[in-house]
């Protein structure tokens, strides 16, 4: 993960580059994997619920998915505190939007807002890796995938977070061939959001908790 | 007392030839016209009470507070222009909070009173400002025990055994002077206060409710509203006493 040790004075590092005392980083990697798949008129979003630091599990039940509207959710992996700050910010922007426009924000609009929000922090980035997913204005499934500083694109499916290296090839293989999905997942619980024109349905899939 | 038409009452920075500041006097008038509020210092604490006229049947009961907390150990009952009163209460809370963060202990009543008086006084010093049309009965409980102060629009502040402001202040003060305040407990004073307010309100006939707070050993030396059941008991006792005296007449 990215480390940032800004503001540490030169002399603190010691003469021969020996670290004299514990420093700190404003970032942590709290792990987690998120995944989204778009269909013709639906969208499925899933995220693990484990929150960890290093080899320690902090909790097995913490949600990474923010449901903004009936047609749009955001799933984020990375640094949990940044994730929560981002989610709070987006939620409040979403409420303000509804007050001034008298309608929920569309999924593509949310996607653009998320990009702008991330890029706004270009030089002190939010260490989050996001997927924005839902139904677009025509009711088609939409998945937008991001890097930490706001670069984004619309795709048919995407995954982010600590398990993405394992998952992306599976997605590429399974989704480009017409066969049932089999996602390799380890961890505690996966929460799954299924977005259709009827609304959003939440399910849970229990894993091995190893 | 009137400076109307003389031109001496246009600013708080102008004296009249006989040494009055009419703007300040007018502010005091705003307080004198207020509904009656009283404070009693008892042997174990302070009781604040105020009559609130129910100006409309549509008014929600016990709304529009007249007694406010300033800190855990201090409270103010305001009389006069209520929005002005709120400003004074907010300032008091700010002073209390600042004192606590600076000195690490709760602000003494004497200091709080002094600072509020200075604050109120400020508005008597500039032509661009209007003196606050409010007076505050300040109840505190500090290291030196309970204390009752009255801060007035001019910036004058006194410490009292018992006092009153508003329309029926003179009648209330007469009643208070008859009582042996030094031997009274707050529990007893709550009943007395209710009796007095009912009595001085008698001829008026308009509906009113009573708001009451105390800071005493019973309340853990914390300023709080008198519990509803204690207040209800006191009001019942006051009404009974009224009827009794009617029978005698």
């Amino acid at each position, binding site marked *: 993960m990215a480390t940032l040790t800004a503001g540490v004075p030169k*002399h*603190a590092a010691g003469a021969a580059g020996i670290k004299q*005392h514990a*420093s700190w980083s404003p970032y942590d990697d709290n792990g987690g994997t998120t995944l989204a798949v778009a269909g013709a008129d639906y969208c499925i979003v899933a995220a693990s619920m484990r929150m960890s630091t290093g080899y320690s599990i*902090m909790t097995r039940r913490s949600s990474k998915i923010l449901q903004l509207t009936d047609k749009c959710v955001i799933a984020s992996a990375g640094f949990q505190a940044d994730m929560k700050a981002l989610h709070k910010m987006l939620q409040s922007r979403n409420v303000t939007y509804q007050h001034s426009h008298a309608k929920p924000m569309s999924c593509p609009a949310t996607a653009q807002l998320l990009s702008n929000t991330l890029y706004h922090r270009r030089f002190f980035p939010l260490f989050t890796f996001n997927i924005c997913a839902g139904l677009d204005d025509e009711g088609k499934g939409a998945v937008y995938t991001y890097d930490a500083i706001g670069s984004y694109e619309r795709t048919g499916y995407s995954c982010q977070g600590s398990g993405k290296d394992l998952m992306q090839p599976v997605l590429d293989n399974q989704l480009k061939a017409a066969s049932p999905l089999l996602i390799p997942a380890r961890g505690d619980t996966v929460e799954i959001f299924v977005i259709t024109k009827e609304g959003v349905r939440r399910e849970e899939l229990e894993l091995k908790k190893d | 007392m009137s400076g109307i038409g003389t031109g001496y009452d246009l600013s708080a920075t102008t004296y009249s030839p006989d040494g009055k500041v009419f703007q300040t006097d007018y502010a005091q008038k705003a307080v004198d016209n207020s509904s009656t509020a009283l404070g009693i210092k008892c042997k174990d604490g302070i009781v604040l009470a105020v009559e609130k006229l129910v100006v409309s049947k549509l008014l929600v009961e016990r709304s529009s507070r007249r007694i406010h907390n300033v800190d855990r150990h201090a409270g103010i009952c305001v009389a006069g222009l209520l929005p002005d009163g709120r400003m004074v209460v907010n300032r008091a809370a700010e002073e209390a*909070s600042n004192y606590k963060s600076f000195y690490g202990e709760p602000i003494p009543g004497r200091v709080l009173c002094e600072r509020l008086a200075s604050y109120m006084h400020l508005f008597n010093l500039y032509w661009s400002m209007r003196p606050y049309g409010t007076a505050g009965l300040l109840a505190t409980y500090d290291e030196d025990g309970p204390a009752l102060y009255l801060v007035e629009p001019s910036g004058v502040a006194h410490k009292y055994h018992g006092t009153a402001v508003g329309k029926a202040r003179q009648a209330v003060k007469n009643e208070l002077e008859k009582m042996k305040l030094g031997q009274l407990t707050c529990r007893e004073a709550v009943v007395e206060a209710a009796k007095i307010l009912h009595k001085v309100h008698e001829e008026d006939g308009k509906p009113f409710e009573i708001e009451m707070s105390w800071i005493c050993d019973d309340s853990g030396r914390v300023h709080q509203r008198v519990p509803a059941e204690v207040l209800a008991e006191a009001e019942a006792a006051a009404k009974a006493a009224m009827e009794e005296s009617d029978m005698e007449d």
Partner: protein
Amino acid sequence: MLPRPTTHSKALGPGVAGPELAVATSAVLDRPPQPTAQRPLSGAQAFSVDPSLVESADGPRQHTQYPYVTGTSVLAVKYAGGVMLACDTLGAYGSTKRYKSLERIIRVNARTAVAAGGEISDFQYITRLLEELATDDYRTDDGIELGPREVFSYLTRVMYNRRGKMDPLWNSLVVGGVEADGTVFLGTVGMIGTHYTDSHVATGFGAHLARPMFRERQSDDMSEADAEALLRDALRVCYYRDKQSINKFQVAKATGEGVAIGKPFALETKWDYKAFAAPTKWAIGAW
């Protein structure tokens, strides 16, 4: 466990790691100090400040880079009707057991308790923030009291804001309490703002030593006696293995009846296990 300094700094004193003096004092010179424009000829320095600290290229140094006096693990579990928090009473100055009766659990209001590990001065600052918050809440007199969830949310924002300024409050905080509707709340927040709620939490060393025990034995409907027994066992393990702890603990509980912070106590310990005398006896390849 909290990172701790390992070497001494001449600028800050023994027991603390820190910057070295840019201009050495006579104490570390083999010759008298040379007079300079800024220094009196007498060489007197009642209070020496490292000039590089004041005039570094990055401007004056003002942010916490490492903790000075620290508290170690905080443990907490939910049980039927409440939450129980525990920690020792040590304030460590580096590896020195400097303050042995520091109380690291506070009552915020009738329904909320907060316990802290990490830098003690930062915790005292947080205590002040919470006192002001509670007084303001009392003053408002609207019949609503801040619940533990709200106090927790407030603290997560304070911690995250300070890390965003690159000036963190060097603490791990545990918030426990009971909501107005009787729901038991337990959460923790770290120095960079990471936070979560769970049935049991532990900070620092406790995250490694106590939480495995909690996972095995804790349940939300366990009795108060069981919860206290579990916490005592966990405290004992932490005391055995955490060098920066002492055998003087406090347990606090927050229930519907309010917050009760217990008096400090010591645990029965046993040090004459054979494995303690010869810790590597059965370890293959050890010497």
